[in-house]
């Protein structure tokens, strides 16, 4: 998987590439509009992550350029301006997703995975992890070939975990993933706990393994190690 990151803030760019490299993505980072145009004209990427406010141009124009080339690349906008106009314009001209800075890295990772999944027509459009199997299009989950009935939030939670396996997910990032950033996170912590308890119980009832590890005071980790 090749990913192009266009972000002028170097430290943020490094954090993102660091995180994504662990997911076995080939992540290239450029820091301005000009370099980005050069890259997208030369190479093909599965997904580009673009900041709207670049020192020498607007990320929106980059998206327009991509779309003119009838590119199939998935596009995620990241922007400090949580200006909703940008969001609407961005999505209108063909971006697949929009993230507001500051965002959680696992969130970005989950969004990238979701986009790549949606774009891989004919390919393996399913998430498999040991005895767990998810068909994202049908929103179906099975354990040991037994289908699992999950609520919408439990499903979202499971997909979020599987997109970031072997990583510690903070309670904040889980809360934001499930309820968006308008919710005061502190309220939802004990609620996340119940959700995870239920999810665990449902998986184990079907004979699945308990992959969710609690990291005390911090969050959770989905892992089989």
């Amino acid at each position, binding site marked *: 998987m090749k990913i192009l990151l266009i972000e002028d803030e170097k430290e943020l760019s490094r954090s993102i590439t660091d995180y994504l490299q662990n997911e076995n993505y080939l992540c290239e980072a450029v820091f301005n509009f000009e370099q980005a145009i050069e890259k997208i004209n030369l190479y093909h990427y599965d997904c580009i992550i673009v900041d709207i406010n670049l020192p020498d141009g607007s990320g929106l124009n980059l998206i327009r350029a991509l779309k003119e080339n009838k590119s199939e690349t998935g596009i995620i906008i990241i922007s400090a301006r949580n200006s909703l106009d940008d969001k609407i314009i961005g999505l209108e001209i063909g971006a697949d997703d929009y993230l507001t800075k500051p965002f959680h890295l696992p969130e970005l990772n989950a969004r990238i995975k979701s986009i790549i999944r949606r774009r891989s027509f004919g390919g393996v459009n399913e998430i498999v992890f040991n005895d767990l199997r998810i068909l994202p299009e049908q929103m179906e989950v099975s354990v040991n070939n037994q289908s699992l009935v999950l609520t919408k*939030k439990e499903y979202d939670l499971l997909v979020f975990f599987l997109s970031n396996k072997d*990583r510690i997910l903070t309670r904040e990032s889980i809360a934001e993933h499930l309820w968006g950033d308008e919710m005061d996170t502190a309220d939802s912590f004990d609620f996340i706990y119940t959700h995870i308890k239920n999810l665990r119980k449902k998986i184990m009832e079907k004979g699945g393994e308990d992959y969710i590890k609690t990291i005390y*005071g911090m969050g959770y980790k989905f892992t089989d190690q």
Partner: protein
Amino acid sequence: MKLLTRTSLSYIFISGVVFLISGLIFYNLLHNIFKRQLDETLHEERLLIEQTINYSDSVPDFRQVFGHLIDVTILNAPQPKTGYIRDTLMYDNELGTFASFRHLFAENTSIRNKGYIINIYKPLRDSENLIAEIVISMTLVFLTLLFLLIIVNYFITRRVWIPFYRILHNLSKYEINLAIPLELVKTDIYEFNLLSQTLDKMSKKIRLDYLNLKEFNENAAHELQTPLAIIKSKLELLIQKENLDEMQLQLISAIFEATTRMSKLNQGLLLISKIENNQFRDLGEINLQMLLDKTTEHFEEMIDHRKISVSKNYQYDVRLNMNPALAEIFITNMVSNAIRHNIIQGRIDINVMQDYFSITNTGQMMKTDPRDLFERFRKSGNNPDSVGLGLSIVQKIANLYNMKVEYLYCDGLHTLKVSYI
């Protein structure tokens, strides 16, 4: 009290006092003049009587001559020379009652060495009548004058103060967050011109300061986003490290939580300044019912988790013309507020009426003053982690669309009522 009423009243009061005092002085003066004149006449009459006595020793009927009471007595023995004039009460035959008289008494010895006593009584009635007439006519003249003065003053003042009232009117219409400048009032009255110009200068300065402050707020919030994003991302990378012990994880967790709070705070402030700057211009038709349903559905698990029962009462199909994103924030904040401040097994009632909608929730009594509820950073004591911007944002959005938000409390029920005008 209006300026005009005030000046008119002062006018009447002061004129009244002045008139009363000057009236008294005038009355006394008049009284004295008349008395002096009366006394002079009395003396003249006495002289005449004395002359007659000196001349003839006989006493003619002076009463016939002067028309008032004169009593002259001739004595055989000489008398020492004395005399006085004073007021006295006497029975007045003409009036048939007691009345004031001026009384002259004189004793002397005539040339023929005979004593005589003269008593002259002159009624004060005539002069008193005269004084009364004079005072009455003066009062009438004064009152007419006063009345005219007040009327004239009223109209002149009203005319003169017109620019002032215009300035006042413009000033009351002026709103600092609108780009419309304070309207200047042109007038030929120096002071009002000065006032108008000074106010103009002042309002421009205040507006400039206001804009600078707003810009600063927005820039500060905006510029904080990037460093916050960096801190968060670095922390997220840090916690993925394998060899962290529990102590270190807890430290990071504390930093992480603080950073999250700060970034939420920042986003809230940024949102408020964006609303204030009217940066959400796109309007759309919002189906209030649908939005309320969507939002409660979004928080469904949270509502179930707290065992809260939600009842909806949609009486009217309400469409609001709002920016869709703001409408969502608006309703989300209100609903999440009702969930957050609720009790376990509580209740949420949502009512949509023709001219208002309300969200009522059970909850503990508030410790803060309800009037401060919509202020920034106002939070109830039991939720230290909340940022305290939610209702302030609700209010800002409501203001933007000319809606009125009220907080009502009754029997453990908290209600947020939004009236769309």
